[in-house]
């Protein structure tokens, strides 16, 4: 006979859900609602006057060529960081998954960067690549390249992409490694016996079986690039030179905090929110179908 536990009353389940619901409401829905509310006003920095302006903050934003530029920058930046952090992490995970000496030590070292705060990570990279002080920068200059991230937008972008990628590799590595270890050895061994070489085994067996992990990481990484890379950009380039590294989230900060334009900044965060919700929805709707669980 089937055993079924039935709880009386509705209070207990709600009470158990309460802490999580409260946290979600206070820390997610409440600020999000505030951002939507503020985006319909213009106000001075001190909040002395507020004027309801309907969608003016949005129309100003969409009439501003800098905003589109920052969208393109974000697109380039997020594609690069997501691609490199996922592929490099996968490569490391595959290597660390092999039977090698001191695998535990490798794994530990590969996880360390995740514990470094974004701003600190930024400063570390800045020091290495600072044109007059940085060791790496001096090596690059010795090779005859006029390395100058302070003026060359491409160099600046390279630098923030490297710092942001480096920071995220550990996280991805961890999940890939766990994913790899959950793939049954027997499947791989069977393929080996059938004569499949390592590369073929990887692409036809491991990679497809890893796809749930890859998909999850894709979503997480995109959210990371959109929101969490702000500290790195702020400490490495400050959005420069000439806006070459001003991403959408950095622009929210610089308009809101440096410019004191809370309405415009709120409008930008609302758009950013919609973009990320849309992206995630698309990923679940279309990419998830191709994922084999």
């Amino acid at each position: 006979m089937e055993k079924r536990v039935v709880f009386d009353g509705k209070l207990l389940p709600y009470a158990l859900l309460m802490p999580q619901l409260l946290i979600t409401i206070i820390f997610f829905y409440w600020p999000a609602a505030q951002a939507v509310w503020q985006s319909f006003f213009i106000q001075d920095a001190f909040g002395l006057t507020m004027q309801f302006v309907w969608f003016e903050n949005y129309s100003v934003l969409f009439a501003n060529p800098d905003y589109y530029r920052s969208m393109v920058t974000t697109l380039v930046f997020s594609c690069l960081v997501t691609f490199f952090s996922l592929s490099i992490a996968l490569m490391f995970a595959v290597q660390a998954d092999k039977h090698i000496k001191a695998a535990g030590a490798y794994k530990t070292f590969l996880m360390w960067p995740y514990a470094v705060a974004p701003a600190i990570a930024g400063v570390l990279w800045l020091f290495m690549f600072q044109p007059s002080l940085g060791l790496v920068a001096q090596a690059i200059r010795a090779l005859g390249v006029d390395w100058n991230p302070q003026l060359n937008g491409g160099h600046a972008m390279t630098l923030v992409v490297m710092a942001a990628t480096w920071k995220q590799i550990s996280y991805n590595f961890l999940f890939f490694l766990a994913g790899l270890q959950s793939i049954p050895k027997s499947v791989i061994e069977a393929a080996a016996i059938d004569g499949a070489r390592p590369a073929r085994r990887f692409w036809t067996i491991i990679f497809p079986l890893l796809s749930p992990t890859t998909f999850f990481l894709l979503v997480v990484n995109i959210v990371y690039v959109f929101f969490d890379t702000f500290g790195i950009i702020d400490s490495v380039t400050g959005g420069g030179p000439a806006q070459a590294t001003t991403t959408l989230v950095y622009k929210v900060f610089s308009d809101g905090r440096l410019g004191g334009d809370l309405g415009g900044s709120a409008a930008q965060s609302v758009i950013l929110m919609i973009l990320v919700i849309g992206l995630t929805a698309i990923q679940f709707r279309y990419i998830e179908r191709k994922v084999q669980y």
Partner: protein
Amino acid sequence: MTGANNEVVNKLAQDFNASQREFRVVPTYKGSYPDTMNAGIAAFRAGNAPHILQVFEVGTATMMAARGAIKPVFQLMAEANEPFDPKAYLPAVAGYYSTSRGEMLSFPFNSSSSVMWYNKDAFRRAGLNPDQPPKTWPEVFDAAKKLRAAGYDKCGFSSAWITWLNIEQFSLWHNVPLATRANGIDGFDTELRFNSPLHVRHLQNLIDLQKDNTFSYSGRTNTGEGRFTSGECPIFLTSSGFYGNVKANAKFDWANAPMPYYPDAAGAPQNSTLGGASLWVMGGKPAAEYRGVAKFFAFLSQTERQAKLHTDSGYLPITQAAYEQVKASGFYRENPYLETPILQLNNKPPTENSRGLRLGNMVQMRDVWAEEFEAALAGQKSAQAALDAAVSRGNVMLRQFERTVSR
């Protein structure tokens, strides 16, 4: 304030607290200038503002416009019957923090100006006279080329605070308008004007010299100052507040000199303007507490104390009397580098173009101007196009600021 200057502030508070029993001053460090200002604004919005907030000079317009949030200093002192004479201050200092009617709104505290630092050893190496620094921009360019040929090939000369030095100070020093309405002092309906032929010519020179690193860009703030103390850049324009750092870290013979100018520009050199910060009194506190603030300001204004602040911190003496006293003591014979910025500030009586500047949204606007400078120096834009864009983008921000404050 950080480092040694933080100690100076703490000492001031201690001395004041020991000098009387009625009031207590508690100094709190809130981070960099923009961080401090934002913390003050956030505290005000939360109904928890401090009595006194130290705000850097570019935040002046924002504070001034927040009429309901601040208590003007002239009014505070009058209500508390404390002696206060705006004329006691150096004109360039008083003008910066006063309304067009001469009412002082904030209390000047730490002021600096920008000067040209140079490496005397490098000058000797390049066959230049270390006791006759270049006075004009063409002379600076020549000297930098010679220095470059003598081995300083990564950087002949450079400048921190790229926009403060090359737009703001440049305009005042050459007596050309930075913006209409006396650079914004006479009203928030000001429009930027720094795309004049003289400005374009200067930026074009920098673009041309950047190509072979005779000029080498050092970023928007002062993070590039280490290039001077490390010996990489033999000529470096930055704040006079750099003094302590140079003294502690430069392992070569150094000096400073007034900022260069274009000799064919009529009226140049005019006078420079100041940087640094002033103390703003926040509004909405009881009268009894304001009496304490007024007492503290009276305490700060004493000539002895002003003179000591100047010689301890390297910031400018802000009152005429303190300057005279330090001068009479012979201090500048030993430390001529501390007098250069004062001579610049006092060079000529200020004109409409050189009283100071007061532009809203200035913190972010400086970034916008710097973006255009960077585009021009990287060769993406001509000097004219970059300055035109900086002016028009800046004007949009000024109009937005005007709109949020004028109601």
